């Protein structure tokens, strides 16, 4: 078994036991990245020198008998909207192409504290707006299962690089499905925690009330290990909970789901869903029943309005969050004759078409005279949706749903049709609007493409999801490494 095939847990163990040096592990993963990157284009900024220096420092610390943390020696990759001190953070945008943050995102510092080695920063849709990485200002990432297809987005680079073995753990942000949809397209785990579980400090926001940070992994154990490292209180994020987090890895011991109720959302049945996804859901349902769970129908009558409301709230917040890119303080600054000219030229040159589309939408829905008709109404719908979820979780402990309506689509297939592109978030964005935890996991393969399915839990109900996932991993197997034939 090659080192790049190993799980993070195995690598950390090997380092602890002295079986492999961190330098060796890092070198193998950088080699894997070098070999596949010409095909995949998952990385905006590889951090080879930084990673080697860090590996050497960790090896010295280990030789002194120190144990820097639970992820010691584990290579990790973060989405390029995570601020990294002294390392450029582009958000895959021309606007920030050369921006070097003066500080680390909280999650980055937690990873560092745990001993992880950052080996690269992953491609994404510009400012996390998109579902394919085709809206990256730099290049489109390829799906490691079929390079003619997209890896999903917006955290497509993180998903593809984890699936292909650049690193066993990678990280992304999820505003409407930006972790789960690419996880499904790349055949790995991708988890969006409960809103407030993980600090958002230092992750360049898309829509602050919906964004949440989460991990990608190829084993459930790795996913939970990552959660234990990043799910910590943070006084720099007022929306991050101060409560103690559960011992996530306890879920690995779960073997049966007696007394647990698995909900199926009645309203999701009516949508056009690809056959292999329907089959994967049936297999998962059978496995959960086998483990002793019961299956119940739950109803979310308002969920069909979710997409419309999401595309009001998220752009509204984005229009304000991205206002600061004005050419005055950082990032792109266009040559201009006047202040207003500076604003116009900078933003015209710095933002791509999808970002502009959403900023225009968001500015419009917040304008006086339209606020009540759009933004305020959308907030009311969200409140109703939250109530409906709360009621559903009175009847079910966890919800089983598709992650996406389709298997990974081909590059270019949806790029000219924003509505069709937006549709790929249909099943993921309700969890963001209700602030719920949700996991995409691999439910099998169809013609060489992975098939993702989703588990949604109640607020702070991470353990319900992870318990069901533990049962499913035992029954359906862990994800396979992608890119074997590349």
């Amino acid at each position: 078994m090659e080192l790049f095939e190993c799980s993070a847990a195995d690598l950390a163990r090997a380092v602890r036991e002295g079986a492999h040096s961190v330098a060796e592990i890092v070198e193998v993963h950088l080699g894997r990245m070098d070999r596949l990157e010409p095909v995949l284009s998952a990385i905006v900024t590889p951090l080879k020198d930084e990673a080697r220096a860090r590996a050497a420092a960790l090896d010295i610390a280990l030789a002194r008998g120190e144990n820097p943390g639970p992820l010691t020696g584990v290579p990790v990759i973060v989405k390029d909207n995570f601020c990294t001190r002294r390392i450029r953070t582009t958000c895959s945008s021309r606007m920030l192409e050369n921006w070097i943050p003066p500080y680390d995102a909280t999650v980055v510092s937690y990873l560092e504290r745990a001993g992880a080695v950052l080996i690269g920063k992953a491609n994404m849709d510009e400012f996390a707006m998109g579902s394919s990485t085709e809206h990256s200002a730099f290049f489109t990432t390829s799906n490691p299962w079929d390079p003619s297809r997209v890896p999903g987005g917006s955290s497509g680079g993180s998903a593809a690089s984890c699936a292909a073995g650049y690193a066993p753990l990678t990280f992304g942000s999820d505003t409407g499905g930006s972790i789960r949809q690419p996880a499904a397209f790349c055949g790995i785990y991708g988890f969006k925690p409960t809103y407030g579980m993980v600090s958002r400090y230092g992750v360049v926001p898309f829509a602050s009330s919906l964004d949440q940070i989460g991990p990608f992994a190829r084993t459930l154990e790795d996913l939970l290990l990552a959660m234990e490292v990043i799910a910590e209180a943070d006084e720099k994020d007022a929306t991050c909970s101060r409560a103690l987090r559960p011992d996530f890895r306890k879920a690995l011991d779960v073997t049966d789901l007696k007394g647990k109720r698995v909900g199926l959302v009645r309203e999701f049945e009516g949508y056009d869903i690809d056959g292999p996804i329907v089959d994967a859901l049936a297999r998962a349902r059978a496995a959960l029943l086998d483990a002793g769970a019961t299956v119940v129908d739950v109803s979310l009558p308002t969920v069909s309005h979710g997409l419309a409301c999401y595309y009001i709230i998220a752009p509204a917040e984005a229009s304000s969050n991205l206002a600061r890119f004005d050419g005055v303080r950082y990032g792109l600054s266009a040559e201009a004759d006047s202040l207003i000219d500076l604003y116009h030229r900078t933003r015209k040159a710095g933002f791509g078409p999808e970002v502009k589309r959403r900023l225009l939408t968001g500015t419009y829905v917040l304008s006086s005279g339209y606020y009540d008709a759009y933004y305020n109404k959308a907030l009311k719908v969200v409140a109703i949706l939250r109530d409906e979820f709360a009621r559903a979780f009175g009847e079910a402990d966890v919800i089983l749903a598709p992650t996406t309506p389709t298997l990974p689509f081909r590059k270019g297939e949806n790029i000219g049709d924003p509505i069709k592109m937006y549709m790929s978030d249909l099943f993921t964005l309700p969890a963001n609007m209700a602030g719920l935890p949700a996991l995409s996991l691999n439910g099998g393969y169809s013609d060489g493409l992975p098939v993702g399915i989703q588990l949604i839990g109640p607020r702070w109900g991470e353990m319900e999801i992870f318990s069901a996932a533990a049962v499913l991993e035992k029954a359906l197997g862990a994800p396979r490494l992608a890119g074997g034939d590349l």
Partner: protein
Amino acid sequence: MALTFQTVIGLEIHVQLATKSKLFCACSTDYIGARPNSNVCPVCLGQPGSLPVVNGRAVELAVMVGLALGSTVQQATRFHRKNYFYPDLSKDYQISQYDLPICAGGRLSFRDDDGVEVSVAITRAHLEEDAGKLVHPSADGRLAGARYSLVDYNRSGVPLLEIVSEPDITSPAHARRYTEEIRRLVRCLGVSDGDMESGSLRVDANISQKVSDGRWGSRVEIKNMNSLRSLERALEYEVKRQRKVLGEGGEIRQETRHWDDGEGKTRPMRGKEEAHDYRYFPDPDLPPLIVESDRLKGIAAVMPELPWQAESRLVSAYGLSDDDAKIFAESADTVAYLDGCIRAGADPKRAANWIRTEVLRVLNEQKIDLATFTLEASDLASLLALVDGGKLSTTAAKDVFDVMVRDGVALEPAMTASGVTAGLVEGSQLEDIADKILAENEEAVEAVRSGRDPKGKKVKFLQGLIMRETRGQADVAQVEDLLRRRLI
């Protein structure tokens, strides 16, 4: 029939809250004289990804003002984003409050210059962050003529409390009085230094005229009034201007005007005419701000005495004059110092007199405040006790006071150092001094003895010398008696 006019004024006062750190980050608020962009961090610079966290102290200070004004302190309040582009605004939105200000309603009452009771309703008081400062490197520091501008974000994120009055104010003089009262309040509460010149207290005025023929002039906003005097002058100018226009049948344009203190005129601000759409919406980075009942009670319990409460207490309990009471009530520290003196046994009026003339003089000279003043109230009280007991003359006491302040020592050592002993200089001690003075002034003595001092001028002169030598510690009658005996 000649037209008559009624002036209608509402004030928006921005009070810079005296917190150590900014409203949403840990940076220092001490920006005056600081190197540009030295008190900054990712949060107040609006760096991508940074997030605000509310400063609890700023909330407490806002609550104190609300309680003092009789506002409803809203226990569940929230912050909104006010979106507009400007280089001094590091995020291109300002975090402010909109539909749920922390303080709603309230009232401020005061006497005007003629002693008439005036009452102004408060609309609201809300928390918001200050912006940075633009620096224009043109010769006169103005935007016009500058080739580029610099931004200093040291002030970015400093907490402000915006206190908005109802349009209840009917004259420029009342506007000035209202502002004085707000300033006195925030100073007394320790909520702000209330300094208008340095911008800790900024007043914008909305002013309009109601005409006796039923017309209403449009509302005009006046900015850039950096002192109480310029506030009153600007409003007086504006009253005249608006009445003239309306009197000639013209219309007042609704606009923002800039007060030019040098010219003594208001003039329209250029480029600020277009109506802004601030696209307010609740800031998703900040959860609703809950002020729990216990916390509210805790703040109420430690509220200092309000200036108007202190003022009436000083008059009724200590018998101070209205004017003296007003001077003391200007600052909670001064009131506390006076209370301390009196608690330690000093006579109220004497203590008030000494504090007003001596203590405040020293504070002024040394440019310090009572917090750093070394002389404890109880020390001053012991000194005054000696004066009251006739053991120390006022002159001697002032010498001792100066030593106590200068050397930071207690009463006893200060007396030794200034060569003063408690009690009258009398008997043989006084006789020795008198003999010494007479010996040193033979000419005068001779003049008196030979009858060349018909008006008693020389006697008075000698008497003065003796009193000076005893530092006023001798009884004048005794000295006169002694001299009479010696000079026969």
